[in-house]
């Protein structure tokens, strides 16, 4: 039972991060290599809002989430918008530079010391006992629930929402979408804000569960194989990919060697690239574009 719980929690972490990669790639074909850093920035934002809304943890959390949405829009407006029409590689390199900038800012502002947002907010993290004897911490349970909500909402939004349909259209054929009157910049800004939001949610909930350090972007990078395994342009794929990577990782830690956990996501990725390079649910034609 505990192994099952561990898989579900780890898969939820990876899935919540991976959907940020997918959202941006699906709409703009840009691989956001600053996603881990944006996730970390969202988590550190809680520290800032905790002191701003001292004694009001819910308000502090809501403010941090709103802030991450705004950061996503600002990143697009002031940085990625300039890359529109440029080579995709240039846009990707821009995200690398953005990541370096965010890492530097975080260390300068908050130092590299371990931080505890839950403590700053005065929130507990009790251990919950599940039927069957498994244990899960409260914030891990919230993370799993958030993951379910985010994926349900995003899938519904993309399928039925007006702006969701525009996002899909812009992703499939931006020229045609623009000719039909779709505001491409609006769509891209929305994709960046939603991606930053989901990443920030993952970062905030992980930080509330077990603390926060400046090494968080590496976790963002570990979730990247989940997105690739599922197919970089598929949200369902990201969910399935996260589950596969997490299951492989947890089971190998338990039954083989804990050291394998570091390489497992990439081993799964290599295996997938050999067998089905476009991922489980990815679009085959995208491979040529990449």
């Amino acid at each position: 039972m505990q192994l099952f719980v561990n898989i579900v929690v780890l898969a939820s972490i990876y899935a919540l991060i991976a959907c940020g990669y997918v959202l941006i790639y699906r709409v703009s074909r840009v691989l956001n290599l600053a996603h881990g850093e944006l996730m970390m920035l969202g988590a550190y934002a809680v520290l800032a809002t905790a002191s701003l809304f001292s004694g009001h943890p819910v308000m502090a959390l809501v403010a941090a989430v709103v802030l991450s949405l705004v950061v996503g829009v600002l990143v697009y407006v002031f940085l990625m918008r300039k890359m529109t029409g440029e080579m995709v590689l240039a846009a990707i390199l821009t995200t690398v530079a953005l990541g370096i900038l965010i890492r530097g800012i975080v260390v300068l502002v908050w130092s590299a010391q371990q931080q505890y947002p839950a403590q700053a907010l005065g929130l507990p993290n009790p251990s919950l006992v599940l039927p069957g004897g498994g244990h899960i911490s409260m914030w891990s349970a919230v993370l799993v629930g958030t993951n379910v909500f985010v994926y349900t909402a995003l899938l519904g939004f993309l399928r039925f929402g007006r702006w969701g349909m525009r996002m899909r259209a812009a992703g499939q054929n931006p020229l045609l979408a623009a000719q039909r009157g779709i505001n491409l910049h609006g769509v891209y800004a929305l994709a960046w804000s939603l991606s930053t939001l989901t990443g920030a949610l993952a970062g905030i909930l992980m930080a509330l569960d077990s603390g926060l350090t400046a090494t968080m972007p590496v976790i963002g990078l570990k979730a990247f194989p989940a997105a690739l395994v599922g197919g970089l342009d598929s949200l369902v794929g990201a969910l399935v990919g996260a589950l596969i990577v997490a299951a492989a990782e947890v089971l190998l830690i338990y039954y083989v060697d804990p050291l394998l956990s570091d390489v497992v996501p990439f081993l799964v990725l290599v295996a997938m690239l050999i067998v089905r390079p476009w991922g489980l649910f990815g679009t085959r034609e995208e491979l040529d574009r990449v």
Partner: protein
Amino acid sequence: MLKRILLGAISAAALALPALAQDAYVVGLTGALTGPPSSTYAPAVDALRIYIDGVNARGGVNGKKITLLLEDDGAQPSKAAANAKKLITQDKAVLLLNASLSSTYAPVIAESKAAGVPLLFASSVCPQSVYPPADPLQFCTTGFAANYDSQATLDFVKASAKGPVKIGFSAMAIPLSRGEIDYAEELSKKMGMTPVDKEVIPPPTADYTPFATKLKDAGPTWVYSWAPWVTQVRTLEALRKLGWQDDYIAWGHLETESELVRLKDGKFYTVNSNSLFQEGLPIQKEIEDAAKKAGSKYPAATMAEGWIAGMVIEAALKGAGWPADAAKLRTAMENLKVDTKGLRGGPIEWTKNNHFRTKLYYRVYKWDGSKIARVQDWKSYDVK
């Protein structure tokens, strides 16, 4: 016009700097001041800076100021090498300091050896080369030490355990931590304990629960971790979330004091070579005041390592006299005894053969329900 003025100013500054340096002791440090591992080193370096500023404010050493040059290597060996070269050849440092990850040691040692300049490891883990028989150029003030720490920890576990000990281990997947935990595992067998599991956890990890699950299922009565703080404490917290309620012991890093208060865990012990600030020693008050006055962003409780390094540097320069060169300084460092005023269990004493300590002292602390309590007072170990 502006360009010319700027160029002129830069040239004048470049000419003036070596001139200034000639009238002061130049000490150069390469350290992980930024980057993920900087949480271990940056507070110590800040404490060292504050200490040296204090010495200079009091008139310096032998009537001369100390110029402390800080270079950030971000824990990257290539940057550390470039920093060491610059500090020795360009800035003419008489003493080189390392406050960074062990991966930076080799290039810094190479530069130190090539120039014959003494190298002091301050807040970075002491390499074996400072133990007897010591390398003539290498010295160390850092509190934690491979092998001795595990010996002291397992001695405490054995003395505290009421019955047979089944012990689990947790390390970070870096050479130093793995090597120490491997050593501890073998040592525990010799001491009659039963090692049941060893988790080597990669940094960073999204969730420590999968590792803790395996550790818990092995059924340890004690778990010992010697790793960077993040691994030690997150393993403990993951074990507690899983309902494991036995004893956990770990190395007392800079963060110990605030973390013991945060966790309030009566079965979490830390083994320390530095006194915690709750002891309220006069020197700790002095550090607190100096940190406050300097406006440091680090808590005073994280500054003992850097302060001790400062005390040792001051004593070494005093012994070397003026003008000091690398050879004179080395001779002074080979015959040095510094009273740590209670920050450690005893003095830092170096001889020609031992550039580490002649004796090591360990204290054990835990949370006793209302405050941090000392559960074992200084216990000494001879360094041979």
